């Protein structure tokens, strides 16, 4: 069997239209000065803009129509998130979509329907994934006892303080379960906001000290572990799509500067020392987008098979490495300007460092890929 494996790549007209709409929306609603206005606000995003996105149906785009979603499936998130990345537009969309996908896959609609309906209508939600800095750690310390009392300390929870629901994986009767905590159950001091490298993003450490839940607010059963596995891969794919969008915008920024800045009597874009790395960025983005849309062609199914896992991991490994290279070169190629706060290159470099650390960095995914590809 070939190590190359599945090479499906399809993109429907419907997805193409979504890509066009999302791209135009993000371009016009999120110019870079709007992005900069949010850098030092506590919330980090413009609620009015988020409302517009909800009105476009994006909060529920991947959720079934029975809960008020668009029924387009997880693949529909990819073009939207890529366009958001291109405009550095941050909202709770990605966190909410992943929380929604997790609940959808792990529980029955009779139990999760109301949460999903709230998410589809714009209530933010998030998944509290981490208990330490290691995405490869399969251990789980969080405990939900027999009386449904949750004791957990979760780190770097994305959009934690914007979320109405926090979905917390925890051990319950020897199995992994999902505790759905309403924001109202947490005191303000349960949150310690993180200071992030990417100022467009928000996250917090969250202390769940003896939160009393009910059987109704806990999703249990054999589907939970599989759903966690799949949605982690989906998270990697969405971060990859966002990163690929950011890398494309970063490249545009660099090319724009290289086409205007003169030194030694010539446009600096004429120097091959600057030209050729731009081509490396371009081909890196090309590879990333090919992996990303290959992966998005495969995620329609209910459970993710080996091919989906390979595709998502390749997408993440490639996109984040490319964005890191693009951001790094963007600062360097802007010269003294690039060292300043005013220069947008720093925004991409910060995004790059943040993206690399979500859902596992490139090395993490290549290590998993090695096992998938070389040990069969």
């Amino acid at each position: 069997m070939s190590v190359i494996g599945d090479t499906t790549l399809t993109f429907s007209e419907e997805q193409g239209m979504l890509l066009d709409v999302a791209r135009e929306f993000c371009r016009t609603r999120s110019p870079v000065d709007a992005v900069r206005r949010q850098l030092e606000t506590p919330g980090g995003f413009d609620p009015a803009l988020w409302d517009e996105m909800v009105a476009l149906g994006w909060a529920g785009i991947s959720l079934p129509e029975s809960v008020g979603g668009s029924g387009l499936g997880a693949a529909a998130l990819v073009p939207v998130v890529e366009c958001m990345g291109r405009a550095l537009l941050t909202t709770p969309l990605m966190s909410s979509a992943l929380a929604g996908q997790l609940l959808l896959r792990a529980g029955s609609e009779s139990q999760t329907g109301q949460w999903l309906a709230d998410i589809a209508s714009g209530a933010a939600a998030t998944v509290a994934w981490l208990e330490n800095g290691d995405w490869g750690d399969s251990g789980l310390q969080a405990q939900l006892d027999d009386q449904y009392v949750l004791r957990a300390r979760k780190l770097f929870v994305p959009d934690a303080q914007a979320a109405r629901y926090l979905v917390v994986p925890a051990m319950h009767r020897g199995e992994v379960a999902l505790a759905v905590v309403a924001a109202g159950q947490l005191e303000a001091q349960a949150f310690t906001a993180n200071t992030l490298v990417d100022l467009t993003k928000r996250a917090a450490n969250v202390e769940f000290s003896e939160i009393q839940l009910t059987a109704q607010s806990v999703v249990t059963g054999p589907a939970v572990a599989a759903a966690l596995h799949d949605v982690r891969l989906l998270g990697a794919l969405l971060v990859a799509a966002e990163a690929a969008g950011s890398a494309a915008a970063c490249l545009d920024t660099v090319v724009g500067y290289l086409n205007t800045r003169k030194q030694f009597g010539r446009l600096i874009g004429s120097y091959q020392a600057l030209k050729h790395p731009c081509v490396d960025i371009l081909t890196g983005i090309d590879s990333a987008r090919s992996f990303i849309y290959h992966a998005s062609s495969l995620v329609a199914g209910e459970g993710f098979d080996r091919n989906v896992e390979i595709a998502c991991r390749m997408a993440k490994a490639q996109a984040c490495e490319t964005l890191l290279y693009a951001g790094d070169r963007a600062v360097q190629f802007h010269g003294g300007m690039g060292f300043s706060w005013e220069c947008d290159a720093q925004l991409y470099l910060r995004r790059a460092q943040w993206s690399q650390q979500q859902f596992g960095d490139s090395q993490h995914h290549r290590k998993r890929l090695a096992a998938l590809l070389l040990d069969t």
Partner: protein
Amino acid sequence: MSVTDQELSEFRAEVSAWMRDNNPPDPGFLLPQTFMEVGDERQLEFLREWQHKVWTAGYLGMAWPKQYGGGGVDAAFQRVADQEMRRHRVPICFNVIGLGWAGPLINDIGTEDEKARYLKGILSAEDVWCQGFSEPEHGSDLGNAQTRAVRDGDEYVLNGQKIWTTMGNFARYMILLARTNPAAERKYDGLSFFLAPMQVEGIETRPIRKLTGEFGFTETFFTDARIPADCLMGEEGQGWRIAMQTLQYERGAEAGAAGGLAMVRVTVDDMIDDLAGARRDGEPLLQDPVIRDEVVRAIMDEKALILGDRRARIGALTTDYPGSLPLSQKLRASEGARQLRKLAITLQGAEGGLYVGDADARQGGFWQRAYFNSFSATIGGGTSQVQANIIAEHVLGLPK
């Protein structure tokens, strides 16, 4: 002409059986992986015989007109035949400049006389063709070619020098780019295109010894060489446009090429197979975490190219820089091929230090020789560095 799936699948079974039954046994010497590696008469005669056999069986030039030696059927059949040749790992059809460049060009824009004179010999391998584009001072800058062609009555008189002429010493004909008008305002407008005979007085070839120690290319010298005036293709001044037209046939039989396996494609799978049994630190090679990371990168590079071909056909996913995927294909494929061969040698351990001729060399030194030869693709046809300039300027819009 429409072809049914059933016709194609029946044909596939037929050609597959033929390739299986006729794939020649190991001749006892390393066969060329590309047409740029035909170094001696022994290899030449072996490949000539093979191509002739494939053509006689009806699996080459299938879409070319029947009266000129072709099969006169839909190009879809040739594509199937090519796929089966690749799958059965048969030898290459080596007359590539004829099959993939000169032939389709003659088919498209040649006169009846040219078609009758040249096409059959290209397919049968009787007439080897070579290409005279590059010059010593103008490797990647073809538009600047300086070899002169001066009209004198019924003849053109050639003076100058070409280099990197593939199989120049074996070739009967050359597609030649020469300058007929040095005074043309644009350098491109001074160029003309010729179907030139090689066996005339004043044309001399000198084999170039490659870094592998083998041969495959020549320098070609023109000293007052006289060729008939009707060797001119099209009109004077159209040389650049015609030369550029030959490049489009690289897309295969559908674009007009005769088909046949032009090169042995080497993949990560081949590398992994060929490294069977290799060890590092006393453990199987592919259990080493550093090696695993390198091999995964190589797999990703190869897969990204395949997926890129698919994505290039989806307009909605290529809006940013529409030329990016097609224009970077040569750069990426040739660089990827070079990197893979280099990696394969590194992973052999001490055996990686052996070369063709050593009894202990893995696969007879295949990877070592393939690595050295892979530079022909990263240098020929515009070096990778020139390719990067082209992409930067034409795709990204950076200044010259």
